[in-house]
């Protein structure tokens, strides 16, 4: 079971990294969601998948009458899910407003490469075309 999950997590990481590095910010959001879930699975697996190690009762005490699974990773994942959800929502709104302003979400476009401050003169037009490359 662990091996299966490990392979799945690896696959999810690979797919998510591909999406994140693709240069389009919409794909970035999907990659970010996917990698977030991969990490959650990773924490889940790291907490061991069998019923032997309760995290709260020391070995020499009796507390729980039967073996239960480790609750701590589940609590961690719950927190991470909520945080991840908030982050994805924020990023989507940010990208929406950025798209309204720049008209593109391709990070190789000039509007993302230009780092001039608000009262710096815009770099000359030729500079931007050079940076944009062959397109």
């Amino acid at each position, binding site marked *: 079971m662990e091996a299966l999950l490990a392979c799945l997590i690896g696959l999810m990481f690979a797919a998510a990294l591909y999406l*994140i590095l693709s240069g389009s*910010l919409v794909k*970035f959001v999907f990659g*970010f969601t996917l*990698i*977030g879930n991969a*990490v959650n699975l*990773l*924490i889940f*697996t*790291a*907490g*061991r998948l069998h019923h032997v*190690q309760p*995290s*709260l009762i020391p070995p020499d005490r009796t507390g729980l009458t039967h073996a239960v699974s480790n609750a*701590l*990773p589940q609590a*961690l994942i719950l*927190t*991470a899910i909520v*945080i991840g959800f*908030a*982050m994805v929502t*924020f*990023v989507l709104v*940010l*990208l929406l*407003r*950025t798209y309204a*302003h*720049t008209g593109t979400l391709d990070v190789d476009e000039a*509007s*993302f490469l*230009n*780092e*001039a*401050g*608000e*009262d*710096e*003169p815009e770099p000359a037009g030729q500079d931007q075309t050079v940076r944009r490359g062959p397109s």
Partner: protein
Amino acid sequence: MRILPALPILLPMAAALALSLMMGHQRRSHGIALAGAVLHLAVATLLLATVLKHEVVVLWVGDWLAPFGICLVADYLSAVMVLITAIIHTAVMAYARYDIDPVQVHTGFYPFMQMLTAAVCGAFLTGDLFNLYVWFEVMLIASFGLLVMGRNPGRLTGGVKYVTINLIATLFFITAIGLIYGLTGTLNMADLHAKAAGVENTALLTATAMLLMVAFGIKAALFPLFFWLPASYHTLPVSVSAFFAGMLSKVGVYALIRMFTLVFTSNIGVTHATLLVVAALTMLFGVVGAASQMEMRRILSFHIISQVGYMVLGLALFTPLALTGAIVYLIHHIVVKANLFLVSGLVRHTGGSFSLKTIGGLYKTNGLLAVGFIIPAFALAGFPPLSGFWAKLLIIKACLESQQYSLAVLSAAVGLLTVFSMIKIWSEAFWKPTPAEVNGSPIRRPLSPWMLGPVLSLSLVTVLLGLCMEPVIQFSMVAAGQLMDPQVYIRAVLGGQP
């Protein structure tokens, strides 16, 4: 006062709640925020005084004993970082009165700033790795809010870069947390110290340490992960950029120092040797990047990067003297850098622009501002007797003691190049005659004491730090001793009764 270590977090949170009920009422919001900041400063001072008496102060939240529950730990390093956060917070809050426009107040500047302060203090005080992750996330969300508030569309593209790279950093962080939990079964930092040393799979542990190094390296803007910083800081409102410049990358440095002294010390040959190379390249690239810039805040942003290199160099050398140097550097740098960003706002206010090409003659028109700039600028460059000189001296001495002669030369050279940048700002903005086009429409707005006051106060702190360096160095030596030999910290966290 068992709850004392939680107060620097709870107070700004309460202020944030109160401020979000103000519905953007400008004067009232400013009053509450400033009162909250002063109270925060008082609590932070009290915390430092308590830590000086008891060495390490621990709060087990909900009386769950470590390593099961979350604990807040204030040792020397944490306490002094919280105090500096409070100082910068107070200065920025006073400055914000005329810097922040009504639209920004209405979109939540004050509540966001309070939450950011709470999160920064939480990150400094927590003794639990997962809790640190949560504080990083709170910090991120608050800084995202500050990054995109108002109606300035130019801020969006810088914001996208900041947001995406920081999200990646948190993913690395949480992945490392999962792996550490799988390896050791604990996330309490004090507990991790012994358990990480006993891990059999050292290769995986080192790989995890590297994951964390990348995560914190992005936050701290280390080479080659620093590109987001100069791309976004100069688009922010001045008071926000001052707080970001002073505190945010330093939270990354603090996390690096904490993790690579308390937990990951078993494989120094890989981790700290990597940090050494990274620190050297960070110093070099930061200062060279600054040389080609003509926008004041972009020059300063690149200098954040090169200065972070010094601190990480102190950590990477991993001797008591080097760590002392790193801590002195942290203390000195936060005050100076936040102050320089505030000064850039005043330069813009009187000169009309951040761009050095279009301004000039400020020395003639505004002498106090010139004083307010030259003190932090020279401290940053490392002129004696200001605080930066002592910080650089300690780092260079530590390099020599560890026989890293090339790094000592590099540190001195980077200091020289910093002088070059500061003199560039000085001669362009303050000394050269005002360019003709500005003369046509003279902008001679007087500076409000609300804006000049924080700048001059922080300059005074810098001068005092430089003149009374002895106790600061003594204090930092004790703090470094606590980091090099964490037994006191561990005993306080694991051994004590609530």
